[in-house]
């Protein structure tokens, strides 16, 4: 019963937050001067392509872009009727993408799993690199091991992603015959999963993973190191040593376990940072993830597409936060009993 109440409460705040977020998103998208269609029309006129103008005019009417902003917002969310009655987000109509000229849902659907895939690979990479290095750096803090792992980590962080991507692609293709760009060989697109397809995807993932991963790894490593150092100063570590444990075993059993909790707490933030963080890389690498789609949409002020993607990310973040709360409760017995301050 209590849990139910809690869930209802959390859900309530989530809806409220979402509502605020939706208004914010709408405002943000419409902050740059003009809108997609007027820009489109100006562009068409300036290049003398009068033929396209008619269609743009049609869309402007169809999607109520000729109305005041606040009305557009209400129509978009679904609080007010549009030219064809209520059909906004809450009615399950995600809108139309002007840029891609098809329903928003169709565009997002495709790139979503790719986003997840790429970022999953990157997160795995981050963990694989950052965990051992971070632990090592903490265990050997202030020695050359520590410094050199920081150096390696920050090298990845400080190298601008887009340059790194370009460099890796060029030389990767040259010397290792790695593919340039994309997430799989186009011939596998739309094909059912097969071993060859998986191989192709893995092969294509190498560079993106590396590029996205390196920047994350450094940050993660440093955080892990700091957390570990904090934990290493705690008396229970000495207790463990007094038991006669070997340092390695002690390190992985005790402080690492505790130092890891903050990462779980961060799951909720993973998504927006994944979407933002990998945009540049995805743009450079030509990955068909949601990031470049969002960037295009924002640049072109393709408002329904951008709005939907952002709402979606926000929703996932909020849900992610909830999940991480639950996970934390599962992972950290202290919270289970004592509760945790917000």
């Amino acid at each position, binding site marked *: 019963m209590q849990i139910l109440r809690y869930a209802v409460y959390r859900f309530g705040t989530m809806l409220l937050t979402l509502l605020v977020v939706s208004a914010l998103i709408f405002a943000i998208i419409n902050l740059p001067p003009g809108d997609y269609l007027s820009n489109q029309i100006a562009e068409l006129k300036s290049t003398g392509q009068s033929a396209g*103008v008619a269609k743009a005019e049609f869309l402007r009417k169809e999607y109520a872009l000729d109305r005041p902003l606040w009305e557009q917002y209400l129509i978009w969310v679904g609080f007010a009727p549009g030219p064809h009655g209520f059909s906004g987000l809450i009615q399950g109509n*995600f809108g139309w993408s002007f840029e891609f000229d*098809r329903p928003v849902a169709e565009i997002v659907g495709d790139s979503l799993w790719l986003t997840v895939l790429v970022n999953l690979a990157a997160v795995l990479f981050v963990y694989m690199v950052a965990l051992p290095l971070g632990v090592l750096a903490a265990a050997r803090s202030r020695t050359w091991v520590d410094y050199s792992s920081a150096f390696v980590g920050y090298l990845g962080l400080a190298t601008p992603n887009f340059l790194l991507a370009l460099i890796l692609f060029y030389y990767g293709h040259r010397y290792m015959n790695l593919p340039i*760009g994309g997430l799989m060989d186009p011939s596998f697109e739309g094909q059912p999963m097969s071993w060859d397809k998986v191989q192709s995807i893995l092969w294509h993932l190498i560079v993106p993973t590396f590029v996205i991963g390196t920047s994350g790894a450094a940050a993660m490593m440093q955080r892990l190191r700091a957390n570990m150092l904090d934990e290493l100063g705690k008396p229970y570590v000495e207790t463990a040593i007094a038991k006669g444990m070997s340092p390695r075993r002690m390190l992985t059993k005790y402080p690492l376990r505790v130092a890891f909790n903050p990462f779980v707490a961060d799951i909720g933030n993973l998504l927006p940072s994944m979407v933002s963080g990998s945009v540049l890389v995805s743009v450079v690498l030509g990955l*068909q993830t949601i990031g470049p789609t969002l960037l295009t949409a924002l640049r072109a002020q393709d408002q329904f597409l951008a709005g939907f993607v952002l709402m979606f990310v926000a929703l996932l973040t909020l849900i992610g936060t909830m999940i991480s709360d639950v996970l934390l409760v599962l992972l950290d017995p202290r919270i289970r009993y004592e509760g945790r301050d917000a």
Partner: protein
Amino acid sequence: ADLQESPYWAEKIGKGELPAISERVPAEPLVVDLEAKGRTSGTPGGTLTTLVSRDKDIRMMVVYGYARLVGFDKDYNLVPDILASVDVQEGRVFTLHLRKGHRWSDGAPFTSADFAYWWDDVANNPELSPSGPPDFLRIDGKYPTVTTPDETTVVYAWDAPNPLFLQTLAQARPPFIYRPAHVMKQFHQKYADPTGLAEAVADARVKSWAALHNGLDNMYDFDNPELPTLQPWVNTSDGKKIRHQFVRNPYYHRVDSHGIQLPYIDVVEMEIVSGGLIAAKANAGETDLQGRGLDFRDIPILKKGEADGKPYRTLLWANGTASQIAIYPNLNCADDTWRTVLRDVRVRRALSLAIDRAAINRALFFKMAKPGAMSVLPQSPFFEEENREAWAAFDTAQANALLDEAGLAKKGGDGIRLLPDGRPMELVIEVAGERQEEENALQIVTDTWREIGVKLVMRPLDRDILRNRVYAGTSMASAWFGWDNGIPQAYTSPDYLAPRQQEFFAWPKWGQFYQTNGGAGEPPDMEAPKRLLDLSHEWEQTTDDTRRAEIWQEMLKIHADNVFGIGILNEAPQPIVVSTKLKNVPESAIWAWEPGAHFGIHRMDEFYFEGGKK
């Protein structure tokens, strides 16, 4: 010659899914004599890969394919293409004759009904086209009467001449004045079964039948494989993809003189990659034909790939705009002093004279472009060397003299001239910060202008913002391309030379005045522009090509003399990567959107792979 069956369709024909070649091509196909054009006839087959950077760029296949009702040939003459012929009476009645037996790519006959459907049920349907039929069909505010006397004849008749009608049909982005009626009628309220239509609307997650109709009706966007086409290649891939496949149109209307149906190449694959990677991929030999997405600065890397033995050649075509980079002093600038100063032709001439075009050419284009003022290119019949050279030599002494003469002799302490009102002469040039070469060129101009006491301040903006600022008269000057069409012919409208378009950044207000019929902007109040206006009007009135040519020449002269737009250089090289096996690609040519449709005018359907395979 006898028609030959294409091996690509052999299987389908064998199964009876496709009729034989003789049934497919029109009764009188367009026969291309390749040898006469100086090309070789090829072997059909092969898959061509090309790259684009945006999803929506798959419509480039409509541009490259370049099947138009009438199209430009390589000398920029208008010739019938899809149409068998066109009769023009008094420049106002156009009788379009279709080819008998011409079919859509799905095999349905292509007839005058398709034209009628567009005119009656699309262009004039207020729900589908809220703003009515397109502008180019409106002459003096009136639309033509469109009639279809028989299956293969369509008549567009105006009261007054419409000199632009045919040219517009030949554009890179053509106005499709026909629709596959047999397909689109299923989604038209007037013809479709209401319940079926309602279901389709719901399925497509759109809000009305009009949205559905418009959404599917993508002759140009080319993203609806259900929509039959007349282009050489047919889109077969739906949705958001990394690679789109375009398969030869079995009903295409062109054949070569050996009876082989064009296009030679069976499949075109268009791969969507990030813009930054096109050069890298080209360098790796992963494209067979590439112009778009490559830039002058990519040439070394392309040449390097060639040298490394990758199977491609890098051709250098010339850009077709009148000027690669041009500076437009705003004659309608809101700032009074600046407006007066910039309207002084001596000032504009001085600014032009003080540009070291050779240095820019060297720094930016390896000396491969042609320095010169903004005028037409040598490919145009109106080209005159003297126009290109007018006020385009690098001569700071003369420039200084001109400025002194213009009453700007006074200089401030830092050597910058003072305006009549005492402000320093700091000319802010606004640019769309998307082209590096523009910024680089202005950087060089900054240095040489300093020598004549003019301080150039460059301000990069977004394209849309730039446009709005120019239209509002807020900006003093801006940099942009020159006239889009650098190779006008007598039939080309000289609109864009006259103060009739705000899109010409030197006179936005005059352009608005004309475009809005006096509703906004201001009327031209200088002699030369007025004359330009008159001339362009006269061009519209006359149907006589020699008179039109004269008008063109006079207008170009006025421009050369008045330096309304300060051109810096033109014919900048455009790298074109071509697979070594790909034949019939011209060694040197013009790379232009309008007129020319990039590869379109070079007839991509005539390109072929040596031996029919890649």
